[in-house]
């Protein structure tokens, strides 16, 4: 299948570089250049014009370091939780048949349709003053709004669909044949899962993990609303940039923006590599 497809692909690629293809290629490159490459280049140039030493000093600032740590912690928790939830949830959605499965399938995609600010708001409404769960939390002595746990919940909400969708897609593609063979040969459900299912979904899971990490590191609206952007407490890398822009702290804003942009490019390289591996394996 893959062989045939790539063969057909070769046959259909442009062989004659006449005026029309050259124009179309130039137009596309110009468009991507203006929309993506030029803005990225502008940031690098502007940041560097402030002096590398100044950027480094700004990034060594205690506030900046703390903000980056908060973002990394949120991303680490989101990745760990979504690894488990993504695989378990995908198995439930693809392999199980039960009443309400279609509804569950639609609900898990909801986070993709909601504005991040609205996500922060929903948790404020739930846990804030007068919220449904506020009395219960108070009696337990847990503080969620304007605190780290609230930001964890918001980040988990935002990142729910990513690993789940990727694993669901692969489980649907591969079907149950291999799992049935393993079971027929006497493997226990756990053996089947560890030796057959997990290796089959590993690329999809890796792909989902990178998307989750990128999304968690970059989340802004939701953590801004639920966290409140408190310096050295609930300030994340993104809300740090927002505050730095407001305070006209150019070195802080561009330095942190550069750190996040570089991290994104690193994650993108991984996403691209895993994307090719996955397509090759499918």
């Amino acid at each position: 299948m893959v062989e045939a497809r790539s063969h057909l692909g070769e046959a259909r690629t442009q062989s004659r570089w006449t005026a029309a293809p050259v124009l179309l290629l130039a137009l596309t490159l110009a468009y991507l250049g203006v929309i993506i490459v030029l803005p990225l280049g502008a940031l690098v140039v502007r940041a560097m014009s402030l002096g590398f030493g100044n950027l480094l000093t700004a990034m060594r600032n205690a506030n900046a370091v703390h903000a980056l740590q908060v973002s990394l912690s949120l991303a680490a928790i989101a990745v760990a939780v979504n690894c488990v939830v993504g695989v378990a949830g995908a198995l439930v959605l693809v392999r199980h048949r039960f009443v309400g499965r279609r509804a569950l399938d639609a609900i898990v995609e909801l986070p993709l349709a909601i504005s991040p600010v609205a996500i922060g708001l929903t948790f404020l409404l739930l846990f804030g003053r007068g919220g449904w769960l506020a009395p219960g939390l108070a009696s337990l002595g847990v503080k969620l709004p304007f605190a780290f746990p609230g930001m964890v919940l918001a980040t988990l909400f935002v990142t729910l669909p990513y690993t789940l969708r990727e694993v669901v897609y692969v489980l649907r593609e591969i079907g149950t044949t291999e799992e049935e063979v393993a079971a027929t040969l006497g493997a226990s459900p756990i053996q089947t899962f560890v030796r057959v299912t997990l290796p089959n979904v590993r690329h999809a899971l890796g792909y989902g993990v990178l998307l989750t990490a990128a999304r968690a590191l970059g989340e802004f609206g939701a953590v801004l609303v639920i966290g409140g952007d408190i310096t050295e407490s609930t300030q994340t890398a993104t809300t740090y940039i927002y505050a730095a822009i407001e305070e006209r702290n150019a070195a802080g804003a561009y330095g942190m923006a550069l750190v996040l942009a570089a991290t994104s490019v690193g994650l993108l390289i991984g996403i691209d590599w895993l994307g090719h591996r996955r397509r090759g394996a499918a």
Partner: protein
Amino acid sequence: MTASAGIARPSRGSVAVRAAFATYVAVLVVLPLAALASQAFSGGLRALARAISTPLVFHALWLTAWTAAIMAVINAVMGTATAWVLVRYRFAGRRMLAALIDLPFAIPTLIAGVLLTVLLGPQSGAGGFFARHGIRVLFAPPSIVLALLFVTLPFVVRAVEPVLLELDPSEEEAARLLGAGNATVFFRVHLPPLAPAILSGTIRSFARALAEFGSVVVVAGNIPHRTLTAPVLIFGEVEGGRPAAAAAISLVLLGTAFLLLEAAKAVDRFTGRHHG
């Protein structure tokens, strides 16, 4: 117990996993959304209608809709063109270009806003050019469209690409043998099978744009009746201590985006294509 029971008949373990997953989703997603809906409807349907029909909210919703619409039209055309170039042409740097398409999925949207303010700010060449010619880009609707174009770039490209890869080349050859030109071949042979994918990708990008906050708040600010989009207004209402108004606008945006995503899924199902 035979192992195949784990697949065919629900075992105790699989029921436990199912219950745990359903609970996780219920607590994390359903409960907060129920709180949002309850807050939006707390004053009754009429109060909700009043909350979203003030001139300020109406303008914010209208601005969000028309900037997203312009973005969607540009995305439909340029996304299709980009997918075409990536699938059909072989040139140096194609692999890198293909990877670059996904960058907006990896880069924080706030950073997208920062990138555009640096590019279009008064200190840059482009910003200076616009300033000399009296064109306002930053803190004006054009910057909102640009920010939306950045964050939604992959949607149409990634929807059209797989369909383009599977087109039957013999149809194009037949059309060319019958004397059809480039334009005829594109509009009569290629566009019909691509249209559902273009539509689905465009709807998804539009729905995504309705939710965009980080990049827009940085490039356009929050000037009421001028650059205040609906998501930025939600933030303003939360900050201003008016959660009911914020919840009402959130619900309108969420409902619209949800219906749009369901429409996109229906288009995908109609053509039997899974959106990966």
